[in-house]
């Protein structure tokens, strides 16, 4: 464990912040511009994983385990959310035979 913490601390904290912000921004862009629901879900996962990495980095730098415990909360709830989300996508697919968000335009967006 000590070894991992020192290895994490080998990279400057600012690099983690910049890297995670870029990853988060890629996720946000993906959600906004892609039209395939599966890709949108992957982009959302990318956003959450950027958060996880940043939490782990902060936690290692501060020597405080709370951040890493929070990562487990995020992983567990993200899994639950994805399970429900995939179920919704399958339900939509059965009705429209498509996973494109544009295929659903009964309601005005």
């Amino acid at each position, binding site marked *: 464990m000590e070894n991992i913490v020192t290895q994490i601390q080998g990279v400057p904290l600012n690099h983690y*912040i910049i890297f995670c912000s870029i990853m*988060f921004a890629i*996720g*946000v862009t993906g*959600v906004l511009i892609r039209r395939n*629901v599966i890709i*949108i*879900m992957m982009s*959302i996962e990318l*956003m*959450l994983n*950027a*958060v996880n990495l*940043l*939490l782990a980095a*902060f936690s290692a730098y*501060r020597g*405080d385990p*709370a*951040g890493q*415990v*929070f990562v487990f*909360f*995020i992983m567990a*709830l993200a899994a*639950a*959310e994805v399970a*429900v*989300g995939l*179920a*919704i*996508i399958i*339900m*939509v697919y059965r*009705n*429209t035979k498509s996973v494109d*968000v544009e295929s*659903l*335009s*009964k*309601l*005005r*967006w």
Partner: protein
Amino acid sequence: MGAIITLGILGIVVLYLGLFKAKNALIPVTLLGLVVTLGFLVGEWNSEAFPLFHGMVIFDRLALSFSVLCVVITGFIILLSKEYFKHVSTYLSEYFSLIIFSLMGALLVNAYHNFAMLFIGIEVMSVALYILVGIRKTDLASNEAALKYFLMGAFSTGFLLFGITLLYGASGTFDLGELQAYVQTSSEISPLFYGGVLLLLCALCFKVGAAPFHFWTPDVYDGAPILITSYMSTVVKVASFVGFLRLFSMVLVPLHDFWTPVLLTIIIITLFVGNITALLQASFKRMMAYSSISHAGYMLFAIVSIGVTSASGMLVYATAYSLASVVAFGALIIVKRSTGSENFESFNGLAKREPMLALVLTIAMLSLAGIPLTAGFMGKFMMFNNVMGTYNITLLILAVINAAIGVYYYLHVVVNMYFRKPEEEVAEQHIPASYKFVLVVAAASTLIIGVYPDSILSFFF
């Protein structure tokens, strides 16, 4: 604390009732569970509040009063669903237990004292709702609403988490008490903290449906089954606002200068977008969706002029808004069943057919519009008074203009009910006793709070 445990157990018990085909026991057991929950909440009233479970949750007056409101409104919605969900879905027990789990999440958001609980509460509340919104599996509108709600909810969760992470990076804690100490004592606040505040603000505006993050609201409220819409626009919205209020009043007050301009812009956009688009709607349900956006704008007043009276003002406003919404959606269910449409025209001549229903709906609409002698007026008055206290005259003038716009589209329904004739004869509709009970009780409490606002205020604060 007993309240949250009771709700957790209740949800599982209700699921088992569905497994053993005890359909008639569902509503009595659910209501009994809600009464026990209410008992726990009231029982903790006079005990001293301190953070429980290593500072995870705190049941202070703020959490208790809003939790009571959430539980009561959920009880109303459960009573209304007696006749309703037979027509919508065959999965009755799942429907009830999902509502209970969602309510549990709402209580967690009301009472959080650590960001972990805010996150878990919001997720428990929303994940159950994603399913509820899409509970009509073969209906395309319901499907679409579920998908949009899910995508937008997950997206905003990402913002919430990034915000929490940045606050953690700056202060090294998730605990509200320690964050408060950090903001008050540290000589220089890290720029990360400001970024985190902005992201949290975005995420919470998503959850309460404030413009410019409101675009999912009309579609989701329109596509969901009517009772789920009323649950979303009352309990979920109120709980998200309490989350908002607790964060800002406990932690972020010293950073007032930083977030006030942002929030002011959001409020003004929200008021105008909500009211002007509500004017253009032909469907009553969609009008209610836009009006809920504009009410979110009014409720944000309590946060922008944060002070000792914010919580009581928000409580009166949220109570008035929730009661009126429950009445409006309950009436819409009955009208839709007899005419098959959600448009304003389907309310034509309702006063002749159902004078009682027309009367309670009129009270609800007047309350939403903020006419004196109703609870909505007291709510608006207290909110505007708060803003007056901080001398924000521009905001006040814009808000009054918007309140005037609101009167127009709320009274549209009333005019249709009393002065228009239906185009074709509509069959008499039998109103179930549970509907009569809920509508009359909600309308009566709207009037009582409007005339004696002290009845609720002296009790709570």
